[in-house]
């Protein structure tokens, strides 16, 4: 791993944590991406629809604005449509059933010393590690 890779990872991570800290202390809310967007699309988050909408607008819009001035790193995502659909459905259902994703459980939960979030994070990383091995073995991933 080259030096620039981890220094950017650390800076980006601090920005994510700073955003979560502000969202918690000013708005009194937990910054979990799947909960914010999930509550918006499934109708359970009507009470704070404005907060959710503006948050997502910023999430999508700010990188778009940055992209006007700088070339953004490519996502390098697969073009296998079937794989993307299966993965998207798994992430959508899994994060709602498990009440959180990388930001909600992984960042906000662990930093709060929540055992539930720690367990969730260990399980989804573990499941991810096993999935990579299996997907490579059967040729789904290169």
């Amino acid at each position, binding site marked *: 791993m080259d030096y620039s890779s981890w220094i950017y990872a650390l800076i980006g991570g601090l920005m994510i944590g700073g955003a979560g800290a502000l969202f918690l202390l000013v708005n009194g809310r937990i910054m979990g991406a799947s909960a914010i967007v999930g509550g918006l699309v499934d109708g359970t988050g009507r009470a704070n629809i404005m907060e959710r909408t503006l948050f997502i607008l910023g999430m999508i819009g700010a990188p778009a604005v940055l992209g006007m001035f700088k070339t953004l790193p490519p*996502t390098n995502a697969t073009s296998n449509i079937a794989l993307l659909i299966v993965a998207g*459905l798994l992430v959508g259902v899994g994060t709602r059933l498990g009440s959180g994703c990388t930001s909600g459980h992984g960042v906000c939960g662990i930093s709060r*010393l929540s055992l539930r979030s720690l367990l969730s994070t260990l399980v989804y990383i573990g499941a991810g590690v096993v999935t990579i091995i299996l997907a490579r073995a059967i040729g789904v991933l290169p």
Partner: protein
Amino acid sequence: MRNFISLLTGSLFGLGLVISGMTDTLKVQGFLDLFGAWNPALIFVMAGAIVPMFFAWRYAEYRNKSYVGSPLPKSPNVQMDRPLIIGAVLFGMGWALAGFCPGPAMASLTFGGLSGVVFLTAMLTGMVGFGAYKRMCA
């Protein structure tokens, strides 16, 4: 204030995801490839994000209300139940297969091309579908 902070923190979060490399699906899959060409960069993202959040939680303990006057989140749920585990397994599988989790999938929407749009559409469909299923069972 509340609306401004929502837009500001959303922007900061989105930029952080792009700068940290979380929107690069190969880096994410490289992190999960523990027994292959492992790329530990994501540990730095997690560490960088957890530190400010840790202090925010400590500070929140001394306050009854948030800055705008709303109640702070309740004590965390301590139940380790089956939905938590099954949900995490499903999420981990999807995360590994495409290299996207919900935040980066949204942050990269404007520059991720068709692949990102397809993933995000499927993810939102899964969320809507699960919500409908939950309401049906309730």
